């Protein structure tokens, strides 16, 4: 299993003018990992397919605003 979002800690300089953002994040959605889509993957219902934007739960990646998600210590440790 993988995570949709990775974190790293940028260097925080002693003279940085703005309050530091301790973590930086970037997205790693499922198409980076799936390879050629296998046959017979589970499918969403038509309603869920429209709502999520895909027929395939395995290809769905949520996107919460990273500036609004608490970047906890655990969050920071994800790889």
């Amino acid at each position, binding site marked *: 299993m993988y995570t949709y979002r990775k974190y790293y800690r940028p260097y925080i300089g002693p003279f940085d003018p703005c309050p530091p953002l301790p973590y930086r994040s970037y*997205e790693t*959605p*499922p*198409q980076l990992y*799936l*390879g*050629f*889509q296998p046959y017979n993957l589970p499918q969403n219902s038509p309603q869920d397919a*429209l709502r*999520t*934007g*895909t027929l*395939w739960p395995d*290809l*769905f*990646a*949520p*996107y919460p*605003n*990273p*500036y609004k998600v608490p970047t906890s210590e655990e969050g920071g440790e994800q790889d």
Partner: protein
Amino acid sequence: MWIYEKKLQYPVRVNKCDPRMAKYLIEQYGGADGELAAALRYLNQRYTLPEKVIGLVNDIGTEELSHLEMIATMVYKLTKDATAEQMKEAGLGAHYASHDKALFFNDASGNPFSATYFTAKGDPIADLYEDIAAEEKARATYQWLINMTDDTDLIDSLTFLREREIIHSQRFREAVEIIKEDQSTKKIF
């Protein structure tokens, strides 16, 4: 030829009067990684790609046109009732001077659309890799747009569009696998 269905691919609702967001959204209308560039890129490349992936590129190019409509709807709704003064305050004064509320194909900084935003190299690998990169850049643009608004209805539609970029990227990656494959190998399923 195309058959037009008179509805949006996914509903677009806007619950906050925010003409400034329209200025940012126009990036996906006439910007370098926007839906117009995507549609034109794929619908042009389809003629000279290997037969096995033409259908895919045709379908994705067509879907990009439906995304273009969704972005246009967002921009239209966000500026529909703005006064000249509000357009000015939203940073759209220059746009208003030239276009009133009419939509125009330019990016968020006002640069007009250019065909140099995409290419057609004629080399299938080069072209499909460009397509994958274009989808990832469009996905990133949707992320930055989502980060700049707290309008939940707008975020809902933008999240749908972002997910479609993920699916398109997956399909282009599969297209590369298809054309890499040794055509003479006998496949047994």
